[in-house]
């Protein structure tokens, strides 16, 4: 990663984003390695990583589901959507399925207020969700991806 993006401080975020894209999260080993490569202290790298919501420092599943919790999606019933996913995947908010395929999280406003409730699965946005629709999407990921 450091070879790809460079070893300057301003490349740090790119490197961390690149690792998360591949590994879904930043392990302690990865963070200290990045620190060594860029000649920064581990604290600086860890401090930067933990600042950003999408730079997870805990193990995540292959697919990270982030349901929007901000007001419009809340008004449109995001709690029902979360409940449906919890029931389908047998996990609670914040948890990862046993097969490491899915992690269920909430996130702040992701800019789909007019088409709420909305969620992201990794980078992909899904909008106008209903309980049926979200189950369909999750099943599709479980089977086909």
């Amino acid at each position, binding site marked *: 990663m450091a070879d790809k993006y460079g070893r300057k401080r301003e490349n740090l975020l790119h490197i961390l984003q690149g690792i998360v894209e591949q590994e879904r999260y930043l392990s302690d080993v990865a963070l200290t390695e990045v620190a060594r490569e860029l000649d920064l202290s581990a604290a600086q790298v860890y401090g930067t990583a933990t600042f950003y919501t999408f730079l997870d420092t805990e193990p995540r599943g292959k697919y990270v589901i982030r349901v929007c919790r901000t007001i419009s999606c809340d008004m449109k019933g995001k709690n029902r959507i979360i409940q449906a996913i919890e029931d389908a995947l047998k996990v609670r908010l914040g948890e990862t399925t046993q097969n490491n395929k899915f992690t269920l999280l909430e996130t702040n406003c992701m800019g789909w207020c007019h088409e709420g409730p909305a969620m*992201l699965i990794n980078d992909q*946005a899904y909008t106008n969700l209903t309980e049926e629709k979200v189950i369909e999407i999750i099943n599709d990921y479980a089977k086909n991806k």
Partner: protein
Amino acid sequence: MTYKKLKRIDLIFHEDCDCSQVLEKTFRKSNDEIINDILESGLKGRGGAGFPTGLKWKFTAEQPSGDRFVICNADEGEPGTFKDREILFKVPSKVFSGMAVCAKVIGAKKGYIYLRGEYRFLLPQLTKALDVFHKEIKDLLDFEIIIQMGSGAYICGEESALFESMEGKRGEPRNKPPYPTVAGFMNKPTVINNVETLVYAFMICKHGPTRFKELGTSDSRGSKVFSVSGDTPIAGIYELELGMSLDHFVEEFGDGDTKAVQVGGAAGFCVPRKKFKDTIIGFEGVPTGGSMKVFNSSRSMYNVLHNYLEFFEEESCGQCTPCRVGCQQLIKGIEAVKKGEQKAAYLDQLMKLSETMKLASKCGLGQSVANSFSSIVDNFREEMIY
């Protein structure tokens, strides 16, 4: 006060244009002429703060020679705002062209688009459009645009936090001054504009300042893209002339039972029904970066406020105490009043706290928590208590 009637405008999305042709025409003018056109149009920043765009460009252009940058702020994170996504999705070349005009005027060779992590799905098509654009302007201007991704932090929409983030650091706002026009990204003179502002700047280059200036009011020239959501049958993105009254807005977008509109997102103001008539949407009244959230009488304003405070508590960068501790205490405070653990008069103390946050916080995040807090508590006090 004089109001404008609600009027739909079709400047940003509708008109197809040959961007490189317009750029070629624009570049025949001198830099001063271009800046004067932008100043003359009265264009103010569309991200919410409303700083005159022409002045930003002028101040940066006046800096002693050396590297300088133009940055497009696409870290659209304000709850209820989603217009920049639509602009980048539908008319990306107009955004690039706006950046190119700015680059020419200030003498920048490099520009960046800081795109919020939530919009990463736009990246493939933006990259493609950018390749085409770079080819088109190859003979016109020595200028390259690079897209940089955010990683889920509302505060990075604050310009100096955005620079920090681009430099690979925690997105913590800097002290001001110095302002970005003097020392922005990599401490070089930088123009940072919202996505929509750059498109309007380009449209002003295309049509001349008069067509823009004819729209809106003396304090709020032109039109603006609004993101309408909440209890409305027609949620979506609308370009409207600035200066309308909220009354007219609600007539068009409300569901007939509107009790309040949150103008400007979580950092904005809540306007109750009785004030719709006297509220003007624009810099002389209630400004907005585009977010318009409509609430009908079935909604609990306590829940709305609680949701906003949770948002701020989590998105506060934690750097300065008034914002970090203030957000936590405001949440605890309204919860305690609701549960009856504190008397209703405690709300007044919380109002004072929010005023302190407004005065003492380092950046716009902490300073604007009081906007929604006091406007909701003031207007819906009984809902906070019972």
